[in-house]
C-alpha cells in the first residue's frame, strides 16, 4: 500500500514536520515495492521474504530513532505514523524492552511457531554460540540481534 493510500485512509492531515520525514518514507516504500516484485528464481524458499522483513525493520527503526533517540520529531507526528500504520507499533513496543533493543522481527520471538517452544537462533547471544559458526535465521535472514 502506497503512502498516499495510507494517508487517504487515515483521513487526517499530517502534523508539523511531516515533509521532513516524507521523502525517506517514500524511499523505503519504493524499496519495498522493489523487494516485492523481485523475482524469486535462484533463491531458497525461506530467502524470498527476507528483504521485505529487512525493509520493514529499517522503516520502523528510522521513525523510532527520530522520536526516541534523536527526539527530532514531535509526539503528534510519531503518533500519526503509528495510526497510519506507516511503522510497526508492535515491533517498536518490543524495542522498548530490555534485551529486545535490536529485535529483527516479531516472528523470531514467536515461540508458539517452533517445535520445542524456543526463540529463533538469531535471539541467542553471540557469547552463547560457537564463535566460528555463522548463522542466518530462516524467518528474516537475521544474523543475530541479541548482543
Amino acid at each position, binding site marked *: 500500500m502506497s503512502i498516499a493510500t495510507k494517508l487517504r485512509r487515515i483521513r487526517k492531515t499530517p502534523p508539523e514536520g511531516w515533509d521532513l520525514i516524507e521523502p525517506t518514507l517514500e524511499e523505503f516504500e519504493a524499496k519495498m515495492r522493489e523487494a516485492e516484485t523481485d523475482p524469486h528464481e535462484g533463491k531458497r524458499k525461506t530467502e524470498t521474504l527476507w528483504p521485505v522483513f529487512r525493509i520493514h525493520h529499517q522503516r520502523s527503526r528510522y521513525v523510532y530513532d527520530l522520536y526516541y533517540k534523536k527526539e527530532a520529531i514531535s509526539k503528534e507526528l510519531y503518533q500519526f505514523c503509528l495510526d497510519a500504520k506507516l511503522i510497526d507499533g508492535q515491533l517498536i513496543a518490543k524495542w522498548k524492552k530490555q534485551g529486545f533493543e535490536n529485535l529483527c522481527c516479531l516472528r523470531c520471538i514467536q515461540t508458539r511457531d517452533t*517445535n*520445542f517452544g524456543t526463540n529463533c537462533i538469531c535471539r541467542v547471544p553471540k557469547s552463547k554460540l560457537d564463535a566460528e559458526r*555463522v*548463522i*542466518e535465521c530462516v524467518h528474516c535472514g537475521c544474523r543475530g540481534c541479541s548482543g
Partner: protein
Amino acid sequence: MFSYSETSIRIAQIILFLVFISIWVKQRGFKMSMSMSSYNYNRKTWEDSEFPILCETCLGNNPYMRMVKDKFGAECKICERPFTCFRWQPGKGARYKKTELCQTCAKIKNVCQTCMFDLEFGLPVQVRDHALQITDDLPKEGVNRDYFVQNQERMLSHTDGTTPGGALANIGTDTTSAGYEYLKRIARTTPYYKRNAPHICSFFVKGECKRGEECPYRHEKPTDPDDPLSNQNMRDRYYGNNDPVAEKILNRAKAMPSLQPPDDKSVTTLYVGGLGPDGTINEKDLRDFFYQYGEIRTLNVLGVKGCAFVTYTTRESAEMAAERSFNRINIKNRRLTIRWGIPQAQKGATGSEGRPINPVPSLPTTSFPVPESLRPTGVKRPSDSPFVAPPSKLVVPSVAPKAGRGGDDAGGSRIYYPSQDPQRLGAKGDVLEED
C-alpha cells in the same frame, strides 16, 4: 545375544523430550485396506511406538537431546506401512537423522531403524549373516511380504519386545561361537560419529553454492562415482545382498593380520604397547582388563616407554588374552597393541624388563621357599639369583609391597604376606599345573 541392552542403557541416559507434533497424516494413495478406520481382519497395521530402536552411533554423542515424534509420519522403506517416525540431531554439527524402517522390520533383522546396521555389532546385515551363517530369504514384494511381516509382528508381540524376530530368533545365543568372535573382532569398539556428518552440498559440487559459510551442508569434494561405496541403497543393505559396505568390511577382515602364538610353550607373557604418556593408563586399568582372561602372575608397566608386560599363570589364559585383545583392546580410548613377549630366560638374568623384584623383608635372602614336591618338573630354573628373574613357570607373586603402602617394610618390622594382601585378587602364589 541379540539384545537391545545398549540401546536400553542409552534410553536411561537420555533426557528425552518427545514433542508430539500433530501433523495431518495425508492419505498417500494407500490401498483401501490401509485406511485407519476401515476394519479388515487381514489389514496391515499402522505402527505406533514410543521410542525408536537405534544404535549408539545414530543417537550421537550428546546425552541430552530432543527428538520429534511424528505419529504415522513416514512410510517404512521396506514394508511400506506407515510408522511412527522420529527425528533428532545426533550431536553438534551433525545432520538431522530420522528413522527409516518400522520397528517390526528393524526387529526382524535386529538392525537400527535408521542406519540399518546390526544393533549388536554395528555391522552390515550381510557381514553378520555371513559370519553367523544365517540364510533367510524373506519375501520382498507385494502380498507375500505383507503376510510375512504380519506373521512376524504377531510373533514379536508375544515377546517382551527386546528380542529379534526372523531367522535370528531361531539361532542360539552362543556368544562363544566362532562367528560371534569374528564379528566382535571386526566390529568397531567406539561409535563412529563421522557417519552423522552432513551430506555433501550438491550446489558446491556444481560450483554454485552461494551460501558460503552458513551452508549447513558439507563443502567437500564428492566421492568418486566409480567407487562402489557411492552406490548404496537401503533395500540391499537391509536384505544383506550386494552391499558394498559389507564387501569392503569382509575384504578388510580377510586382510587383517592375526597374532600367532610362539612355539615356545613356556611363553605366557604379552607385550602391551601404546599406553601413551606416563600415567595415562595405569596398572589398575590393565589389570582390570587382563584379569578376565585368567590369573595374572605379574604385570609390569614401563611408564616411560609406554608399554607393559602381562604374564599369565597359564598358557591358555595368555593365548586367550592374545586372541581376544589383539587389534581389539581399547582402554580409555586408546587402541593398544598386543604382541607376544620375549621369554625372560632369553633376555638374561638381568631383569631388564623393568621393575626389579624386591626381596621380601624379614626373610633370609635365599630363594622363595617352594616345596620340592610342588615344583613343576622339567622346568629348568634360568638363574640362581632368585630375585632378579623368577623362573618362568614358578609363580612368584610380585611380593614387593606397593610404595603406597609404605612404611611397613621400611623397618622390616612386619612381614609382607602376599596371601594376606586384600589387594591381590585371588593370587596366592600357586604353582602352575603342568599342561
